[in-house]
């Protein structure tokens, strides 16, 4: 059983003081401790951005991949070695801009993994530009006159893509986020958590205060997580009150379960010596 101490790495943390990423780091490591997993049985995959540094800060297996490709990379790992707990960390630009082409596909395949998006509504590591989730009118160096496009609603898209676990967290509420991550990892199939993660350096709009004044917990208001229609309705709420928590959850076979050849095995453990291709050769004579 892993402890918080075990999960620490010698790598110096280079996030800005006060950054919302710290809450996600704390919630994730706490979740691992709560789940009682072994640290060598967890793999985290990250994109490129401030969020991507997670791989440097948690002492579990890790693949710091390229920008926008958390989902296919994690898919390859999960299917090949299902015994691993696979968790992806992506940024909003990483996942909703550059990597948007993978989002609905990983979800509709119901790959058995957890995706945590550090949604700070800004490109952090490239010094603060507009992303898909930036609010209309948001001014940055790439949109000095304000963002024109209406922001993308990742929770809705996950719901519409037939997500089997769709949630939203807030990195200012570590306890709540921890419980979401625990549930997400436990869930069989694709678990998605969009996390409100204040970027204290570049996002002047969606600050801790801004969220504090708005977020409320779905689970405290008796939300029925089995009602996708209601989940969709809830996911549209944006303004004075913004819901966090689990929007929707459903049991449904994960991708792997439809593949008899790997259903209950780690492909990594099958021998590759002396594979008998004779039946195929015969068919070619």
């Amino acid at each position: 059983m892993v402890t918080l101490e075990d999960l620490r790495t010698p790598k110096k943390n280079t996030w800005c003081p006060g950054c919302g990423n710290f809450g996600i780091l704390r919630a994730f490591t706490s979740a691992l401790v709560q789940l009682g997993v072994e640290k060598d049985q967890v793999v985290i995959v990250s994109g490129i951005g401030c969020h991507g540094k997670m791989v440097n800060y948690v002492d579990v297996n890790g693949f710091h991949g390229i920008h926008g490709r958390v989902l296919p990379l994690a898919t390859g790992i999960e299917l090949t070695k299902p015994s691993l707990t696979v968790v992806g960390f992506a940024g909003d630009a990483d996942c909703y801009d550059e990597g948007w082409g993978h989002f609905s596909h990983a979800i509709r395949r119901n790959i058995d993994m957890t995706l945590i998006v550090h949604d700070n509504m800004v490109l952090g590591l490239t010094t603060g530009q507009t992303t898909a989730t930036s609010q209309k009118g948001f001014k940055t160096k790439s949109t000095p006159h304000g963002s024109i496009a209406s922001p993308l609603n990742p929770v809705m898209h996950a719901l519409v893509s037939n997500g089997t676990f769709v949630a939203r967290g807030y990195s200012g509420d570590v306890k709540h986020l921890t419980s979401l991550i625990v549930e997400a990892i436990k869930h069989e199939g694709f678990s998605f958590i969009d996390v409100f993660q204040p970027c204290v350096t570049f996002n002047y709009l969606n600050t801790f205060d801004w969220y504090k004044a708005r977020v409320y917990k779905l689970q405290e208001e008796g939300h029925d997580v089995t009602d996708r229609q209601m989940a969709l309705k809830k996911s549209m709420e944006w303004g004075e009150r913004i819901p966090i928590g689990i929007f929707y959850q459903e049991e449904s076979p994960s991708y792997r379960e439809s593949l008899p050849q790997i259903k209950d095995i780690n492909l990594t453990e099958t021998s590759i010596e002396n594979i008998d291709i004779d039946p195929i050769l015969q068919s070619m004579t």
Partner: protein
Amino acid sequence: MILNQISVMIGGEAGAGIARSGFLFAKTCMRGGLHVFGTNDYQSLIRGGHNFYIVRADAEEIYSQADTIDLLLALNQETILLHRNELTHGGGIIYDGEEVELSEDEMGINNVRLYPVPLKSMVKELEARPIMRNTVALGAAIGLLNFDLKIFNGIIKDTFKEEIAKINIAAAKMGFDYACDFSRDQFIGDFEYHLKKTKGSRKKHLFIAGNEAVGLGAIQAGCKFYSAYPMTPATPILHFLAEHERDYGMIVIHAESEISAINMVAGASYAGVRAMTATSGGGFCLMTEGLGMTGMTETPVVIVLTQRTGPSTGLPTYTSQGDLRFAIHASQGEFPRVVIAPGDMEECFYKTMEAFNLAEKYQIPAIIITDKFLAESYSSVKSFDLNRIGIDRGLLSTQLEYAGKEAYQRHKLTGDGISLRIMPGTKGAIVRTNADEHDESGYTTEDPALTVEMADKRFKKLNALIKDLENYETTKFFGPKEAEVTILGWGSTKGPIREAMKLLNKEESRSNYLQILCLCPFPVANVQGVLDSAKLTVVVENNRTSQLSGLIRENLLRDVDHKILKYDGRQFNPQDLSQKIQEVL
């Protein structure tokens, strides 16, 4: 009589089953004990247009199609109009005499025999689908050639389900009988070309396409994960592997894009299995970023780049060798890779197996570069020697527990640059890797000295690889040691070149040929050796800028004497090529 030496073309519209017919006929020849080569020509459309399939069969070993057609099975008039000039003197055409009217006169060529067969009527009589016209024509051809219908029937039975097989056999018999009936006085007696089952039966032979051989090589090499997005002419590998995935405990995913495919493959390899993807130019573009990531993270992957005519979408169903430099230099920054170009179906199999070994031994990406001509052509080959290439996973530990004394470091600096690879999930070890520059443990670094050390580490592997490659066939030499001209080529030109050599060397030893199998790292010493003793050199390539010549210039500081280049999307024909070579002599 010309026995057991023929080039047959089957032509018609797309969707008319042309390729399938060619395949069946070729296999019939192979089971009859002949060498066979089959190649298809089709357009980027699904029905209509003009398709053709060339089957060449011979008692001797053959390596490619021929320039000319001895027997044309024309399923429509267009086929005859387009190909009549390719017919040999004394060649024949089987066609539907009730649908198409042709006189030898009109044909504008002497000595061509016309063999009208009422294909459509016969199919009607059989109450079969129009596509069965092919089978009738094949039956007629077999009759005309005095060949053995039983062999054909056997292939039909092996290929189709019972009901479909039955109707095909009936259709073939109809055509066969028609030809034989008639034959006594007009068909067979008239046609010079005959096929006859030979004793040296090719039981142990396979009729296989380049793509299938690559797929088979992957299965045999223990590839457990394949992800790809369809792209002609690489798609058949996806189909082939998907068909067999359950039997071989492999995951085959039709990904949402090539970007996804390469990243999935990288993930699978990191997790610990052999993994592969295949694509063509446009898809390879989309994979270049992932390719660099595998270079940086030292994740072994095999990428099959099946070239077609570019630039851009180009001619999607035609051949080319235009992507060599791109394969060698794709992705930003510098890291070692191998680029291997098989030249025939056997090499497709063995070199794919080798590619997996090299990728894992050196923890690098390995690119297998083929093209439409090689990938989609079929040939009869000796069944594969399954023991020739062993499995060598290099420094990969498959132990379930890590036994090392010190904490495991994925990117440990070592003498030859190769670090122990273990799988995530191994007890007692943390496997961390990173597309950012990293330290030995996989943590991000920006330190200048470490940056140099890590780049050097990766390039040390290149040195080790180059040394190791001396144990591999990176080049092959064909023909007499001394010759008037030395031909240089890579990849699929091998077949036409070897055929051209047959023609050139009939009387005297005029030509020899160096096939370059490993394009990167470039086998400098081997090529140097051959060039040093060459009288005259000519590079043969299916591209416009002669990329191989560029590599020779760069690596050997010398030029070749001549280049024979073809970039119309079509492969070289042997006769034509031999003439072009003759011209430079």
